[in-house]
């Protein structure tokens, strides 16, 4: 049987960067092929080429035996290639049916054939076990439901090859289970899937074959049945992956007390205590109020009710007050909030102290600031081509996060480490090497007596680092309990089950 998709010698460069280097790959009918690789390994580029967003420098693509013209998304769609993006491309204010129909009808037709489309959508949903109310507004759907709409959208366009880009990154463990069931159903119906991920466990669970990319090259293609976690990790990184080692530490005094914190529409009566030398994790699917909690704890937002005391003092909703109080803040979105991309690395490094430590009579103390930046680069192994003058934008995700981390963890002039670390999704989207580094830094800071609040939707990360875990769902936080007392299923339940939406779907 000929493969449904055949990529031959695909190469793509961006300036000096070789994103894809002579990649040849086949996808068979009814197969789930996992595309595994670190961030920056070239997965997204390869898929973008496949889907016609980029034109390869060399190489050809064949779909169902026919050559696919390069750089033509319409041709890819017509050939039956569908894509489910990690960040959904749905219009929130339109209904499911509208979203699915969008772009499928010629613009010049006066009346749209809604009834027909509706019937087809329902039939498609029934066939693949993807029940969604066609009249529901997208904005009211849960993330898992939205993803189903994305899949339906591709199926409605008669996709026979479906590409899923990190599909589980936004789902609860339970939603992920239901996604996996859907994928099996799709395969039974004869579809072929490309599943992009950097999570080893789920790759081993859902895929038939695994293609591992590293630094733009295809380093291995192997049947999932013969692969295991360790070997895949090593293929992906090219070396053995260090495991972070916690240093012995005992919880010390109370550093931060959060009591009955409420932000209307976001979080309700959240209480939590953070102690020195202890990592407390807030688990949960993102979008359940973690952002509001982190914003309050970064001094960006005033709570509507309740109080937060750091070292016994209630701080104003002004980042400067929190910085001055010794709170090291690591924002969720490093590109948008963590750095100022157009400014050089050294100005980013000093930004939190530009009017205090690094200022004299209204002028920036450039020499001191640059020295500080060099210290950050050295101590946190920030790889920057142009040294402290490199624009922050041109750093890779991992190096950018090391900069964000370094500038707050390195401590003040006297070397006093931070009192409290508020880290939101500190390793989101980073490669394994950078993740390990950042975990180690958090553990080390904790061993030196910092209180750490870790907000994350990555349960592996939480179990690896946290001493105590609390779970956030729909704006409410469970009591924090020692990590050993939580089982994976108990956390999964706390992350999802209490929701009325989930309950209604189950019933």
């Amino acid at each position: 049987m000929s493969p449904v998709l055949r990529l031959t010698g695909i190469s793509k460069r961006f300036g000096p960067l070789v994103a894809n280097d002579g990649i040849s790959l086949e996808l068979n009918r009814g197969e789930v092929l996992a595309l595994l690789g670190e961030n920056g390994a070239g997965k997204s580029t390869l898929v973008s080429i496949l889907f016609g967003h980029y034109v390869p420098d060399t190489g050809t693509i064949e779909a169902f035996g026919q050559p696919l013209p390069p750089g033509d998304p319409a041709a890819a769609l017509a050939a039956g290639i569908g894509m489910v993006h990690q960040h959904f491309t749905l219009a929130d204010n339109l209904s499911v049916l509208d979203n699915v129909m969008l772009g499928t009808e010629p613009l010049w037709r006066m009346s749209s054939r809604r009834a027909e489309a509706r019937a087809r959508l329902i039939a498609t949903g029934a066939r693949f076990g993807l029940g969604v109310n066609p009249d529901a507004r997208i904005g009211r759907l849960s993330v898992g439901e939205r993803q189903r709409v994305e899949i339906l959208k591709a199926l409605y366009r008669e996709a026979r090859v479906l590409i899923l880009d990190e599909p589980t990154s936004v789902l609860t463990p339970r939603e992920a289970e239901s996604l996996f069931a859907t994928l099996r159903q799709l395969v039974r119906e004869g579809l072929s899937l490309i599943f992009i991920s950097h999570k080893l466990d789920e790759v081993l669970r859902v895929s038939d074959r695994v293609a591992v990319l590293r630094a733009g090259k295809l380093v291995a293609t192997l049947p999932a049945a013969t692969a295991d976690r360790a070997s895949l990790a090593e293929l992906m990184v090219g070396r053995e992956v260090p495991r972070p080692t916690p240093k012995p530490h005992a919880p010390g005094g109370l550093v931060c007390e959060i009591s009955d914190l409420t932000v209307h529409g976001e979080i309700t009566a959240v209480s939590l205590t953070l102690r020195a030398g202890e990592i407390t994790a807030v688990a949960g699917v993102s979008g359940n109020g973690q952002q509001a909690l982190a914003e309050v704890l970064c001094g960006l937002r005033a709570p509507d009710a309740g109080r937060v005391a750091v070292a016994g003092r209630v701080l104003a909703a002004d980042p400067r007050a929190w910085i001055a109080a010794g709170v090291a803040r690591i924002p969720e979105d490093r590109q948008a909030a963590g750095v100022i991309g157009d400014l050089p690395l050294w100005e980013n490094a000093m930004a939190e102290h530009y009017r205090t430590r690094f200022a004299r009579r209204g002028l920036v103390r450039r020499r001191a600031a640059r020295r500080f930046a060099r210290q950050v680069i050295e101590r946190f192994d920030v790889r920057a081509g142009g040294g402290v003058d490199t624009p922050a934008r041109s750093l890779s995700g991992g190096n950018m996060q090391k900069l964000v981390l370094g500038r707050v963890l390195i401590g003040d002039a006297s070397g006093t480490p931070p009192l409290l670390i508020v880290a939101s999704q500190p390793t989101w989207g980073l490669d394994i090497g950078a993740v390990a580094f950042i975990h180690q830094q958090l553990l080390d800071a904790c061993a030196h007596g910092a209180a750490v609040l870790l907000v994350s939707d990555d349960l592996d990360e939480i179990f690896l680092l946290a001493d105590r875990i609390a779970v956030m769902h729909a704006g409410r936080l469970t009591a924090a309990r020692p990590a050993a007392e939580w089982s994976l299923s108990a956390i999964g339940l706390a992350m999802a089950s209490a929701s009325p939406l989930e309950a209604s779907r189950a019933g």
Partner: protein
Amino acid sequence: MRVEARGEVSRPMLVIAPFAAVAFTLVVASLFVAWAGAPLGRTYALIFDGGFGSRFAWSETLTRATPLMFTGLSAAVAFRARFYNIGAEGQLYAGALAAVAIGGLHGGTGFAAHPLLLFPAMLVAAMLAGALLLIVPALLRTRLGVDEVVTTLLLNFIVLLFVSMMLDGPMKDPAAMGWPQSVALQEELQLPKLIERTRVHTGLLWAVGLSMLLWLVLKYSTFGFAVRAVGANARGAAFAGVPVTRTVIVVALVSGALAGLAGAIEVAGRTTYVTLDMSPGYGYAGIVIAMLAGLNPLGIVAAAIFVAGVLVGADSMSRGVAVPTYIAEVIVAISLLSMLVATAFARYRLRWN
């Protein structure tokens, strides 16, 4: 053909951009010159001669460049913080009017204060007038998110009508034979000429000095860092503790003050009184100059001289060949567009398949 982001912003391209833009502009403008039926080479030679070809040409160009430097700085400072002040034209008139209100000969006599006192008071009044005009747009923008492009642009018309009212009313010069023009500035307040028997005045030195000062402030001061940080990424700046709202408001006030100063210096250095046509669009040309200069205060000196030279040169060219002076506006407008495209090319590239 498609547009693709470059991996990194190309530095050489950013430097070449203004020159490439000007060259491209001249090519496009030649189509219009040819359309007017004039000989191409001679037309450009006349523009160049008229703008830069003689001592007199230089003196006229520098005279014209002076207010353009102020309005260019006004736009550059604001745009650096992404506050898009399109109201420099109105702020210039407000500044000019305020200057005359303080330093003018009302009913034949001015305020009797010493010029050393009155001159700074006049400049401060002009700056305040320009800055005041931006307070409301700045607050609307920072509090309610109202687009300042709309508010500042529309304020221009309100200010012009107000100036018109004042020139026909309380500030009208009774000796002007019915022309709507303001009373004249006291003679002691007028700026001395920089070169004998030309119109170049010491306002040019003020403009160049301010350009250097603003360059230093943006580069070395904590305020300059705040401005650049807010302009590059307001959310990132806010996260790091830069007071975004306050920075935007201060930037707006500085921008308005600079445009107001343009009006005062123009009155004190060239016109000596306010008329409704004292600015042939200096406020708007300032935006072009700021963009041509890449929002760099030092670049503004050069960009203002270029634009002024084109305007002056086109005036004198139109007396020699049958091309209307409007070609100058075409050149300036196209140079802005091509500058925007050229800087875009430093960030993106075209791919042909």
